[in-house]
C-alpha cells in the first residue's frame, strides 16, 4: 500500500509540475491558466454560498412575518366606539343597518401573509400559516 501510495503521489506531483510548466507558457501567450480559472470558480462559488445564505435568511424572515401577520389577524376585533353603538331611531332602521354593515365590511381585512412561489426551502410553519389564512 505504501508503494502504491508513492506511485500515486509521484503521479500527482508530476501533474502539478506539468501544469506549472504549461502555465508559464500560457502566461507568455496571454492565455488564461488553470490556476486563474480555479480562482474565478472559487469566487463564483463563494457568491453562490452567500446567495444561498441570503435566501435562507429571507425565507426565515418571511416565515416570521407570516406568523406575526397570522397572529394579528387572529386577534379579537376591537369593539366599536360607544358613539357608533347608539341605536338608530325606528324610522331609519334599515339605513342604519346598511351603514353598520358598511362600517363592518370596511374594516381592513387581515392581510394575507406574503407567500413565496420560489421553491427554495420554505419552512413548514410558513406553509401552515398560509393554509390557515386561506382557510
Amino acid at each position: 500500500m505504501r508503494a502504491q501510495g508513492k506511485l500515486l503521489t509521484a503521479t500527482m506531483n508530476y501533474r502539478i509540475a506539468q501544469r506549472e510548466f504549461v502555465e508559464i507558457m500560457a502566461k507568455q501567450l496571454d492565455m488564461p491558466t488553470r490556476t486563474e480559472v480555479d480562482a474565478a470558480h472559487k469566487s463564483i462559488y463563494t457568491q453562490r454560498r452567500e446567495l444561498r445564505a441570503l435566501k435562507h435568511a429571507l425565507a426565515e424572515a418571511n416565515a416570521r412575518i407570516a406568523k406575526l401577520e397570522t397572529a394579528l389577524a387572529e386577534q379579537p376585533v376591537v369593539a366599536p366606539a360607544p358613539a357608533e353603538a347608539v341605536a338608530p331611531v325606528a324610522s331609519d332602521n334599515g339605513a342604519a343597518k346598511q351603514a353598520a354593515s358598511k362600517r363592518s365590511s370596511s374594516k381592513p381585512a387581515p392581510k394575507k401573509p406574503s407567500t413565496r412561489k420560489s421553491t427554495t426551502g420554505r419552512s413548514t410553519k410558513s406553509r401552515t400559516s398560509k393554509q390557515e389564512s386561506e382557510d
Partner: protein
Amino acid sequence: MIQFPIQIDPLQAAQELAELNLKIAQGVQTMSTIRDEEIQYGVSEKHAVYREDKMVLYHFEPLVEQPFEVPVLISYALVNRPYMTDLQDNRSLVKNLLQLGLDIYLIDWGYPGREDRWLTLDDYINGYMDAAVDVVRARHGLEQINLLGICQGGSFALCYTALNPAKVKNLVAMVTPVDFGVEDGLLNLWTGCQIGSESVDADLMVEALGNIPGDFMNFGYLMLKPYQLNVQKYMGLANIATDRRRVQDFLRMEKWIFDSPDQAGEAWRQFIKDFYQANKLITGEVEIGGKQVDLAAIDMPVLNIYADDDHLVPPASSQALAQYVSTDDYTEANFPVGHIGMYVSGKVQRDLPPLITDWLKARK
C-alpha cells in the same frame, strides 16, 4: 510415469472451444442489434420538484391512491448515479416501495463540473440536503419526514440527522459505512484507514486534479476484485449472449457501473481525510459547516440494513452504528448478498421493500 496435474482431453477441449466460439459469435450477433436507446433505466414515473445548482429533487408518482402520509427521502451516494434504485422493471427498489404504498422522493446530486470543485460537505449536507428535506416537509405540511440513506448517502444522512434531529422522524441506513476503521474492507485499507495520507494523499490529489475523476474512482473499485470484475464477468457474458433480454440487463448494469460522476474536490478531500483516514464519524469529531456531528443526537427510530458479502462497506462498518446512536428503537437487518445485490437480487427485492415499509408504518 508422472501424470500431468491437469488432465485435458484434446477432443473435449476442442469441443468446448468450438462451443465458446459459437457463443461469442452469437453474442456478437445479439449485441450488434441492440441499440443504446434500448438500455434505458428508471422505470418509475417521476418529476422534478426542486432544483438547486446541479442537485435535483425528484418526486416519484405514487402507485396507490392514498400513500403513507410520511414521505421517504432517499439520499444516494455521490460516487454513482442514483438510478440504481430504480434500474429496471424487475429490479427497482423504488417501484417496490411505491407499490407498497410509500411516497418517495430522491436526491440526484448531478454531475459536478470543474466549477463545483470548491463544493464542501457542508454544501451537500447543510445546503442541498437540507433544502430537499425542507421542500418535502413543506409539500406535506410536516415537521418531520423519513430519511433513507444509501452507502455514502447513508453517511450523509447520519450527519444530517445528527445535526437536524427535529426534522427526521425515522432513519433508514442501507449499506452505510459508519466505522471507517474496519480493516476487513480493501477499500478502507487503500483509502488509508491504516496509514492515512501515505496511502492516498487527498490534499495533493485535489491540488493536482481539482475534481477527482469518476474514471479514477471506478478503476479503484474494479481493482478491488480484479479477476471477478474484469475477467470473470465478461466470460460469463458468453453464456447469456443468445438471450437478448439478459444481454440488455447486463449492458444496463455496465452502463450504471461506468456512469461515475467526478467528485467535487473539496467534498472528496474532507470525506477521505475525516471519514476514511481519521475515522471521525464515530468519535464525534466530524465538522460540517462549523458544527460537530455527534451520532448520539440520533434519538429517533433507526433501521440499519447491511449486506453480508459487501466488499465495499464491510458489515462490521455498518453494524457499528448501534454503538453510537442514542435511540432506544434500533433495528438491524442483513441480507446474504453483496453491495449491489441489495438492489438487483430478486430475493432481496422480494424481502427488503416489505421490511422497510412495515418498519416505517409501525412507526408513524
